[in-house]
């Protein structure tokens, strides 16, 4: 049972990490919460569903299409709505909440009320020592999540675009003096965050089910993760995601859902009392 709990914790942590990554990125660059994050998660899941189950594209082709299309959607969203109001914290928040409400409500009209399933091309069950089992699709989604996260690290930490994004985050005026178009850099960062959300939707939807509300719960979890990790800190959110994964797994298995949930929240609050800025947040 221990082995199973550990494996489940790792899988859940990887999934949480993936869902939180885009949110962390957008918060990190713009210091703005994107309450529409769950909508992009849902749209990514829906896009994958329609591409695979309706049009009949192979799964990984569909995911690739998501990677191609969502930067455009993200940039359009940033240009059309977010840019004008991001300077005012509450306006940015309210506008994205508005988009969330609108899109979710609209989603039920457009996509219908029936819950949908996307199937992952790799199936089967992996038996691990200690009597634990791991469905192959979960293993792969977890591994892809880790690979995507490594990509995000590389991009933010090692590339010119990443440097520019961090420069804009630390001081947009100084970034302009370096010759960086701060508005354009933010649009790119936002598009990247949106694409990560959609990609998370396309991957995670294969494990669970798809409907117009399927992004809300993961998003609220992602919020807890970025608060716990230290707002905008990518490493912090990775650590927090795995902490939460293990809390959910060990808590749920040892104590049952309710007690485990209660203990988990207690632990999160405890960490925040000792480190209010989050695990990796600035003091």
């Amino acid at each position, binding site marked *: 049972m221990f082995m199973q709990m550990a494996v489940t914790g790792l899988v859940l942590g990887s999934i949480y990490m993936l869902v939180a990554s885009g949110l962390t990125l957008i918060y990190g660059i713009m210091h703005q919460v994107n309450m529409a994050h769950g909508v992009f998660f849902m749209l990514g899941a829906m896009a994958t569903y329609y591409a695979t189950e309706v049009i009949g594209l192979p799964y990984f082709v569909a995911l690739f299409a998501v990677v191609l299309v969502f930067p455009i959607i993200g940039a359009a969203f940033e240009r059309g709505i977010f840019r004008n109001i991001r300077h005012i914290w509450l306006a940015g928040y309210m506008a994205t909440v508005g988009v969330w409400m609108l899109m979710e409500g609209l989603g039920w009209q457009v996509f219908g009320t029936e819950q949908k399933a996307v199937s992952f091309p790799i199936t089967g069950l992996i038996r691990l020592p200690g009597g634990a089992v791991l469905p192959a699709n979960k293993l792969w989604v977890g591994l892809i999540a880790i690979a995507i996260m490594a990509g995000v690290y590389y991009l933010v930490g090692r590339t010119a675009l990443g440097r520019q994004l961090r420069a804009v985050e630390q001081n947009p005026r100084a970034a302009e003096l*370096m010759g*960086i178009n701060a508005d354009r850099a933010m649009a790119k960062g936002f598009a990247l965050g949106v694409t990560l959300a959609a990609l998370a939707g396309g991957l995670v939807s294969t494990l669970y089910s798809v409907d117009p509300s399927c992004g809300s719960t993961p998003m609220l979890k992602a919020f807890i993760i970025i608060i716990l990790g230290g707002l905008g800190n990518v490493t912090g959110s990775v650590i927090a995601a795995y902490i939460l994964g293990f809390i959910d797994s060990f808590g749920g298995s040892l104590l049952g859902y309710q007690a485990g949930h209660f203990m988990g929240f207690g632990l999160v609050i405890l960490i925040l009392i000792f480190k209010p800025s989050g695990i990796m947040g600035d003091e």
Partner: protein
Amino acid sequence: MSLLEIKQVVAGYGPAVALHGVSLSLEQGERVSLLGANGAGKSSIVNVVSGLLPVRSGEVWFQGERIDGWAAHRIVGLGISQVPEGRLVFPKMTVWENLELGATSLKDTVQKSQLLEQVFELFPRLAERHKQMAGTMSGGEQQMLAVGRSLMSRPKLILSDEISMGLAPLVVRDIYDTLLRINQEWGVTLLMVEQEAKLALEVADSCHLLESGRIVASGPADEMAKSELVRKVYLAED
């Protein structure tokens, strides 16, 4: 044709007017200092040239091109770079990353690495500490980084804003010496905001005295040093 020409510039912040029709011009290779009390409008002039502060009326010309109204990130590409007041290095990035960012407007990677070598030669300190987070460096080191970073765009004109702020005189002297070297060896034109009047008059060929958003006196540095006004108010001599 002057390298930089500012004509009757009016600029400000909200209802407040910071510059009331300022005109000045810089020739290629010149070293000019701007002197003035706190709030006189020195930084505002620098920011108007950089494109951070929009003009309300008047014109800014650089190498025969009218640049007022341009976005700041485009102006860098023309060869104007700023060493901003308060240094504004990126604290959570390494020295090397800060320098790389300075070269954002350059496309040529060979030129970039040559510049980096030159900057490291001018400031060996930066070479030693290229992996250190900029925010953890001393004030003097950060100022060196800010100057080094401004060189990374291979500028024709450097606008420096209060290099001496909060630094020990020896370090300040060091940094100005480097700037003068750049002026002589690279032919870079300098427009230096400096509150330390003595310094301002020493490092520049000519000097403008600013009061409440207006230029009230201008002239060669040695003549200005002798003027009654400057001596009384800024050099605190009697």
